[in-house]
């Protein structure tokens, strides 16, 4: 396995996906609208005297990110099936894992885009202070997102070719989202509450371990999802 080549092919696949997405803009638009909608609706429904903003914000933030991620992941391989291009990718003289990495990169860019919309809106609508903790918050969001998007991208390679396609992915992914999401929600809460950084280092470490384990696993398992 020549790694520069692997990464170059991965980037070729990813930039193609992003270009397609940029042209159609359907997924990113619906994800952005969803983010705004959730943030607004939660504001209507909550009683500020009962639950403080800082307690509620982390959960809402991660609900929206999760949804956006599922939207992106469902599209990743759907795109290849729609254009019946998967056989072409498999026939090309590239490592199978570069296809996976390409899809993973494209999905991460997509979700990052949604997150870049979500965080400022959250700060605005919920009046939580984000700026002082921006660095650690972004690190936390990145680490948690990589974890479940890595697993989801692997699963979407399988679910898009099954009977229930878009329905099945969230079902399969649910138990795999629990660890990174629960850590992310807890850590986000601490951060926004202005607790010292040392309190969340443990969670960041665990998220990093989760990412390493599942990205590695997915790279090795992906070929099994496409080889006949």
């Amino acid at each position: 396995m020549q790694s520069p080549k692997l990464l170059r092919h991965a980037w070729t696949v990813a930039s193609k996906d992003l270009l397609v997405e940029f042209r159609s803009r359907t997924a990113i638009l619906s994800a952005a609208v969803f983010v705004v909608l959730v943030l607004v609706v939660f504001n209507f429904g909550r009683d500020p005297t009962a639950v403080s903003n800082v307690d509620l914000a982390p959960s809402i933030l991660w609900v929206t990110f999760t949804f956006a991620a599922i939207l992106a992941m469902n599209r990743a391989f759907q795109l290849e099936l729609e254009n019946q291009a998967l056989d072409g990718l498999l026939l090309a003289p590239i490592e199978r894992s570069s296809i996976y990495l390409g899809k993973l990169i494209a999905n991460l860019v997509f979700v990052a885009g949604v997150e870049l919309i979500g965080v400022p809106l959250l700060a605005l609508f919920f009046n939580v202070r984000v700026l002082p903790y921006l660095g650690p918050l972004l690190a936390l969001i990145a680490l948690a997102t990589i974890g479940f998007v890595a697993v989801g991208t692997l699963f979407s390679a399988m679910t898009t070719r099954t009977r229930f396609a878009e329905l099945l992915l969230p079902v399969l992914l649910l138990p795999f989202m629990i660890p990174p999401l629960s850590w992310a929600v807890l850590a986000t809460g601490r951060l926004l509450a202005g607790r010292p950084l040392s309190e969340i280092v443990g969670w960041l470490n665990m998220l990093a371990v989760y990412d390493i384990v599942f990205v590695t696993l997915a790279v090795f398992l992906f070929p099994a999802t496409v080889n006949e």
Partner: protein
Amino acid sequence: MLLAEGLRHSFGAVRALDDVSFGVSSGQTLAVFGPNGAGKTTLLKVLAGLILPQRGRAQVEGGRRAIGWIGHQPQLYGQLTVRENLRFWASLYDVPESEFLLRKDSLLGRLGLQDHEHRRVSELSRGLVQRAAIARALIHDPRVLLLDEPFTGLDRMAAEELRELLSEDAAEGRASVLVTHNVDEGAELATHIAFMRAGRFAHFAPRAGRGPQQVSEDYRNAIA
């Protein structure tokens, strides 16, 4: 260039390939005719390395990089332009930029697509998409070409152009395997002819000057 030895493969109880052996050398074109479900597509997929046969082996000189595939699916992204599509597939085959530009211009010219280079594939007519798909399959100058029902969906003009293109390339030394259920198509391109039924070659011989009508007759005799 291409060698198949004792290929066997089944899907559950369905035997798709049953002891198929043959070789195709440089400049030769093997046309495989057979009814639907005879195992033709499986044969091509095994040759391409998309399916690992349960028995036997298939070898292509130069490996996956040397293979071009023209199927009934265009394998083009509708939201991208013809050029962007060609660009994408060329970079997966590590075609250098200068070579890409040369080949792209020559292919688009030969296929009459010069004016459509910057149009999105989704905006093209069916015939133009088919031509773009042919350009896509040839962008890395494959030494071995695998064709799965390539004439399906092509208008008469495009089919004629494809035939011309294929015979020119064969003259330059490209080896091809073409599978189709329609005997009238492609018989005159072939140097070798095979009839396939239930995963087996019922007939495999050089064309030896047989015209489409003669091949049709032989096909009916061998299969029916």
